[in-house]
């Protein structure tokens, strides 16, 4: 009997042990099993697709990179503000006009804040806009071709930083100036900055069908630094909010001199009111000089037009259009929650986060409760507009995004972390370290009324020891977090290119479906296209020689060319006759002083070649196009300047 009891107890113990037999992976937060769980969350099997697109600014690379989430794989670099020898962007005759400005041809740019177009407050996946900080410009990238289609220069601006954010129906893409300058520009002592410089906030209209941009008006504001901005949405649609710093209007040692005031401002702009004013003839046209560059997908060619005037608006002439909301300590990020009620101002030098209420702001305006004015613009009382304060969440707050579930996520540069907090109660819910010194963060659908809050990624300024070392210079690093639960979970580190200040991201479904595969030859309206073999030819016009060249796997037509002379300017107009997905051909000729061309199916691109030496020189295809790629070559004979070799060309037979 005793034995039975003993055995029974033993049995129980054993059984108990067995019930937990398969549950080990659920316990132990640092177990190996959990680690493999994280790997699964970012693993996209070979041949399968990521669930999200992310468009990362390339910062000082001037370009945009396209990534997949959650894998962190880079798919493409889209050239925008910088020359790109990989495809010939900014080197080919067709794309050089894209980089034209009032300062002449600028081969480089400093890209900052990409933003995806919206309809009714949701991302519609049609275009990505991005600003160039250094020589102020805004670009529009098509998300069917993934190419830059348009760049507009912003006059009266300098340090185009509080840009390029779109309103909820993409009525406007907005560009604010970081540096105030004399408007119009003139020769004057720098010490006379205060009261004499101004800051232009530009509202660039976007045509609903084509996306074409046009500067509708510029609001000429006091000479502060306009740092970042975001549109109102939902109830606050029609307003735009800009953070300011250097309300001290210092022109030297800003590190100290622009940090004197206890509070700077968030400027609240009622753009609908100004739009109405402008539509009724308000504002005035002032002389200006700025480039508007448009790429045509059918001619495969960009044109640059210099515009000569711009409409400017003095804000005090539009009563009720502009107010200042005091915000502590040089606020940087200016972020509006999905409902449009809360405006978060992240005072870089403040220990707390300040959140303003749109409803309270309207109320204060209606009751004319003003604390004073600055250059004629009413200043609201800080306390009247304040919705709440997130107390001591971290050090050096920069930017805030939202998950659409009532939570906000703020980056802290100095304490290197992302802090999750709750809208309304202002309590901190979670914090996770970043590696290291995070700048912006992105939640897909971030700047919209409908965030797609499954992932968040932080873009870090400092990489140090996160990857195998690559000498003193390293790429920046991004970190992907799962934010679907209460706590954030770090999933992945991935390297980025240049300095991705900010990124725009969205679910892949819409973009994936509309992505174009080829350019139709039948739609090619390039003036120098050779759309079939019969169109290939070589034409001399004085010292210019135009070669109408075609490519198809795997030959050039023509591939023997004679009659070119030293001192000629030779235009290779290369048309790719392929009509199949992913069959580009490249073009390179010895001594090419610009770059190669990478020509997509159905496209025409032109490279100028100025031969300096007599001889017979090869050209070839740079893109491994077929098993006979190595056979894809040609010869061009260059004769002395005074020779009488006549223009001739052939394919498949000798030139006689």
């Amino acid at each position, binding site marked *: 009997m005793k*034995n039975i009891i003993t*055995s029974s107890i033993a*049995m129980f113990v054993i059984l108990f042990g067995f019930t937990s037999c398969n549950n080990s992976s659920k316990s132990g937060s640092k177990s190996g099993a959990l680690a493999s769980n994280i790997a699964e969350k970012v693993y996209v099997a070979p041949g399968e697709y990521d669930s999200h697109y992310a468009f990362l600014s390339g910062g000082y690379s001037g370009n945009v990179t396209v990534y997949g989430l959650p894998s962190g794989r880079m798919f493409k670099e889209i050239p925008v503000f910088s020359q790109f020898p990989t495809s010939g962007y900014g080197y080919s005759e067709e794309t050089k006009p894209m980089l034209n400005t009032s300062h002449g041809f600028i081969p480089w740019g400093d890209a900052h804040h990409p933003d995806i177009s919206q309809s009714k407050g949701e991302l519609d996946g049609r275009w990505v806009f991005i600003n160039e900080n250094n020589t102020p410009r805004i670009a529009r990238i098509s998300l069917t071709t993934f190419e830059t289609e348009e760049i507009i220069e912003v006059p009266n601006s300098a340090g185009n930083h509080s840009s390029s954010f779109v309103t909820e129906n993409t009525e406007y893409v907005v560009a604010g100036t970081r540096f105030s300058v004399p408007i119009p520009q003139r020769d004057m002592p720098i010490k006379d900055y205060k009261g004499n410089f101004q800051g232009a906030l530009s509202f660039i209209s976007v045509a609903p069908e084509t996306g074409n941009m046009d500067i509708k008006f510029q609001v000429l504001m006091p000479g502060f630094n306009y740092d970042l901005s975001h549109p109102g949405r939902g109830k606050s649609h029609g307003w735009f909010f800009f953070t300011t710093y250097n309300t001290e209007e210092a022109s030297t040692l800003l590190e100290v001199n622009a940090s004197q005031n206890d509070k700077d401002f968030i400027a609240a702009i009622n753009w609908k009111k100004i739009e109405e004013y402008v539509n009724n003839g308000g504002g005035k046209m002032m002389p200006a000089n700025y480039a508007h560059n448009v790429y045509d997908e059918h001619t495969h060619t960009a044109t640059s037009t210099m515009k000569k005037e711009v409409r400017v608006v003095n804000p005090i002439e539009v009563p009720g259009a502009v107010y200042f909301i005091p915000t502590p300590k040089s606020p940087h990020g200016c972020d509006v929650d999905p409902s449009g009620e809360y405006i978060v101002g992240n005072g870089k030098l403040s220990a707390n986060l300040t959140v303003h209420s749109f409803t309270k702001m309207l109320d204060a305006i209606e009751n004319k409760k003003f604390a004073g004015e600055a250059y004629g613009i009413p200043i609201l009382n800080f306390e009247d507009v304040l919705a709440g304060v997130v107390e001591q969440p971290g050090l050096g707050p920069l930017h805030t995004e939202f998950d659409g579930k009532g939570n906000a996520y703020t980056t802290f540069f100095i304490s290197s972390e992302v802090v999750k907090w709750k809208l309304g109660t202002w309590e901190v819910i979670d914090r996770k370290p970043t590696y290291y010194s995070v700048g912006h963060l992105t939640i897909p659908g971030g700047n919209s009324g409908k965030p797609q809050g499954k992932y968040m990624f932080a873009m870090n300024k400092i990489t140090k020891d996160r990857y195998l070392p690559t000498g003193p210079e390293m790429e920046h690093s991004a970190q992907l977090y799962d934010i679907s639960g209460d706590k954030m979970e770090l999933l992945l580190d991935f390297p980025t290119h240049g300095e991705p200040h900010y990124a725009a991201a969205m679910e892949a479904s819409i973009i994936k479906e509309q992505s174009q595969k080829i350019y139709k030859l039948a739609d090619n309206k390039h003036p120098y296209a050779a*759309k079939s073999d019969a169109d290939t030819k070589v034409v001399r016009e004085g010292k210019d020689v135009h070669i109408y060249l075609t490519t*198809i796997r795997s*030959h050039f037509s023509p591939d023997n060319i004679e009659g070119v002379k030293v001192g000629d300017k030779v235009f290779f107009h290369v048309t790719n006759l392929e*009509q*199949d997905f992913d069959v580009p051909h490249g073009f390179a000729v010895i001594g090419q002083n610009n770059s190669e061309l990478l020509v997509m199916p159905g496209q025409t691109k032109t490279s100028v070649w100025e031969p300096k030496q007599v001889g017979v020189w090869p050209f070839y295809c740079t893109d491994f196009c077929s098993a006979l790629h190595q056979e894809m070559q040609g010869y061009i004979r260059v004769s002395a300047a005074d020779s009488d070799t006549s223009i001739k060309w052939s394919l*498949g037979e000798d030139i006689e």
Partner: protein
Amino acid sequence: MKTTLKLMTVLFVTLLLSCGGKEEKKKESISYGKKEAPVKVEAPKETGVPASKRIDLTSKGVGPIKSVTLGAEVDQKMVAHGADVYKKMCTACHRADKKFIGPAPTGILERRTPEWVMNMILNPEQMVKEDPLAKELLMEFNGSPMANQGLTEEDARAVLEYFRTLK
């Protein structure tokens, strides 16, 4: 008593074995007779005649085109359209009456079915992988692939009609 213990031991062992579920029941599979030979892809016949000269008026090739009816009379309107498409999309590699990058289309309907021709135009990637003749042609023409020029079925049908006029 002893039996109880024995039973418990059995139960215990069973539990031990079942935990983890890695123990699979092994069944010896026994098969009789000859194993069926795997289906072999028919090797191209070594006839000595190049694929471009060989005549096969039965194979329809691989692709979307299952059946084409040629009218008794050549449709001239279709021919004009086909000649235009051919000039724009095909002449980079084909010359009407001589071998160029690819074979000459003259007389093609004396060697191939209309369906085969259209499938070669519309579905070249799969044809050179799966159709024995297309496969041989790829090698005969130095591995130069037939490019998919994205023709519609209507365009391809018109090109076929145009080929009827090449004799």
